[in-house]
């Protein structure tokens, strides 16, 4: 016998009508809808709507025609060349060995202090070029370099592999191979343009850039976000030694109020009846006068709960890759300054499904969350709506799960259910009941 929601499954109206927000990138797109985009169209075109698909192949010629038209359109769209008109062309050079400071300066070799992956830490003045940078732009112009690249003392801009690859792929950068060392002609003469294929071959796998990380980077860049590498980018980051409070770190990690620590306190509670002596020897609510239900409820709350506010903040080195923040992300609307990036709006960990085939353990997830700063729910709306507070949580991180080029973003938040004393808010909520029920239905 079908219950109500099973019926819903079967009614065509529930499934045939697409939900209001269809993520078009979910499905293979019919490239015929790109056909009207002209080969050399000047204006940026709108994205066409999705097409209708069939249930199964049939031997009709019509279907075969439509399919071959779709394939032809796809072929055309993917054949579109990457062109650089003389006026707008930005030339860059590939430097496989990374940044080398100008010869006349007495700066230490690249990779010295430049190796510090922490971009927020003010580095010594002369150079902050990352040792992973491998492409430089002699004459940087245009919007891209506002959020990408690092300038060296000769005001060439050095690009990280993901930045260079993103720019060459979108057709905005003409990267040249270094000229053959023994060549006699002038430098520009025999430098060959780098192909897209060459760019992938050279940049993926360089300086910790995996294809999955790049897929996340470029996917969000295409949507207008600004991304920079987070301190956890490198898998073998050193545990922070400079910070002394490390001394009392090990102890709280075992029994402290961390997400994993909640279990030890739970066990402690079970095994040590004296910690709750009154309940071990008698009723939880003893005799006496109870003037208010609140007192009773408060006494009933005997199970220890986890308070994310008191959890120790961890260094990224405490986390286990791939459950480690590798990108800091900013919305398109956020003013961004390369030299002084604001606190990130999103923190992203990138997980490849082919390398990591299991869910993170509670320990891994806990330390990932605790490596992000406290971000408690704030604002008038959050104060008012409990479910929004729970959903927002006290710490949050986004996991980008990349399955063979298909990216899913999951937001993981540290919700503090223990902080929401339902019995306390009940009286106040009386008239707000409707709203709460609505959000509960989600």
């Amino acid at each position, binding site marked *: *016998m079908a219950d109500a929601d099973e019926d819903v499954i*079967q009614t*065509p109206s529930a499934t045939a009508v697409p939900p209001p927000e269809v993520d078009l990138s979910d499905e293979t797109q019919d490239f015929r809808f790109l056909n009207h985009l002209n080969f050399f169209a000047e204006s940026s075109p709108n994205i066409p709507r999705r097409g209708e698909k069939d*249930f*199964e192949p049939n031997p009709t010629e019509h279907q075969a025609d439509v399919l071959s038209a779709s394939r032809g359109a796809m072929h055309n769209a993917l054949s579109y060349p990457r062109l650089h008109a003389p006026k707008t062309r930005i030339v860059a050079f590939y430097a496989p060995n990374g940044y080398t400071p100008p010869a006349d300066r007495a700066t230490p070799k690249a990779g010295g202090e430049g190796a510090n992956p922490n971009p927020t830490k003010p580095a010594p003045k002369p150079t902050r070029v990352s040792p992973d940078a491998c492409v430089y732009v002699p004459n940087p112009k245009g919007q891209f370099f506002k959020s990408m690249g690092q300038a060296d003392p000769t005001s060439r801009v050095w690009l990280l592999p993901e930045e260079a690859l993103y720019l060459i792929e979108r057709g905005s950068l003409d990267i040249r191979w270094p000229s053959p060392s023994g060549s006699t002609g002038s430098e520009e003469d025999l430098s060959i343009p780098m192909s897209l294929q060459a760019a992938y071959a050279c940049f993926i796998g360089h300086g910790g850039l995996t294809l999955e990380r790049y897929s996340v980077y470029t996917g969000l860049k295409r949507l207008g976000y600004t991304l920079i590498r987070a301190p956890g980018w490198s898998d073998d980051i050193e545990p922070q030694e400079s910070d002394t409070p490390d001394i009392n770190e090990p102890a709280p990690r075992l029994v402290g109020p961390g997400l994993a620590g909640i279990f030890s306190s739970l066990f402690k509670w079970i095994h040590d009846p004296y910690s709750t002596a009154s309940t071990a020897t008698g009723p939880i609510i003893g005799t006496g006068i109870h003037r208010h239900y609140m007192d009773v409820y408060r006494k009933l709350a005997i199970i220890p709960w986890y308070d994310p506010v008191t959890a120790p903040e961890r260094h990224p080195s405490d986390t286990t890759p791939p459950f480690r923040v590798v990108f800091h992300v900013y919305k398109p609307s956020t003013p961004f300054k390369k030299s002084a990036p604001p606190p990130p709006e999103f923190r992203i960990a990138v997980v490849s499904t082919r390398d990591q085939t299991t869910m993170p353990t509670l320990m891994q997830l806990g330390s990932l969350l605790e490596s992000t700063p406290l971000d408690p729910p704030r604002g008038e709306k959050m104060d008012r709506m409990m479910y929004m507070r729970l959903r927002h949580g006290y710490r949050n991180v986004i996991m980008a799960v990349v399955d063979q080029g298909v990216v899913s973003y999951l937001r993981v938040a540290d919700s503090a259910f223990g902080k929401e004393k339902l019995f306390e808010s009940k009286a106040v909520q009386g008239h707000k009941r409707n709203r709460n029920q609505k959000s509960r239905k989600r």
Partner: protein
Amino acid sequence: MANTQTTNRPNASALTSHIADKGHEAPHLAAAAQVQHNLQYQHLWTSIVGYTISGEAENTNTSGQDPQRPPQTPIALLSGYPPHRVYTHPDEQLYMLENGIREDDLEPERMFVVPLVQGQSWTLRHMAAVFDRLREFELKVEEHDRSVDTRTKHEEETDSDMAEKLARYYKKKEQARLTAEWGSQRLLIAMVDKGMGGDGTVAYYVLHEGEVKPRQN
């Protein structure tokens, strides 16, 4: 069962006494009894019969064994007549639509059910073992039906046009059975969760052998 002491325990539920009455000790048979009860009283199935595909207890180390051999544990198999068709293949449905045949015009069809309990061992080997012997049980149950011969339905319907249509349909159906044109062998799996005593819910899914395109309605 009824307790004669001063404090009376509540009477066992109909389902519990049904399972107890059957005297089934083996877990797969207890599940079969529960599913049979559910089919009979909740879904109004009739003429339910039960079989067992015996396991090979000596087939201890499954790895490296002949993959065709049945699993260690026995599998219970039920069969009965649902009041309405449970499954119609999309292409069969299309044929019926085109030929103006309604489901009510057709003879009721026996359906096989494998009762399963959450937590019991269930593998591809088990599924293959069931399908490999399904035909055998189909023939067995057909014989059973003939011997009992309870069904005299549709006898009076002598609309010659319809009779002809149906004859063509049955011929086509037999042919489709061989070519798997209207889907391959299929049965229901009935899944019961007895964790914490269970809540009596039985979830039914159609299991097809091989790739059978999904229904669209």
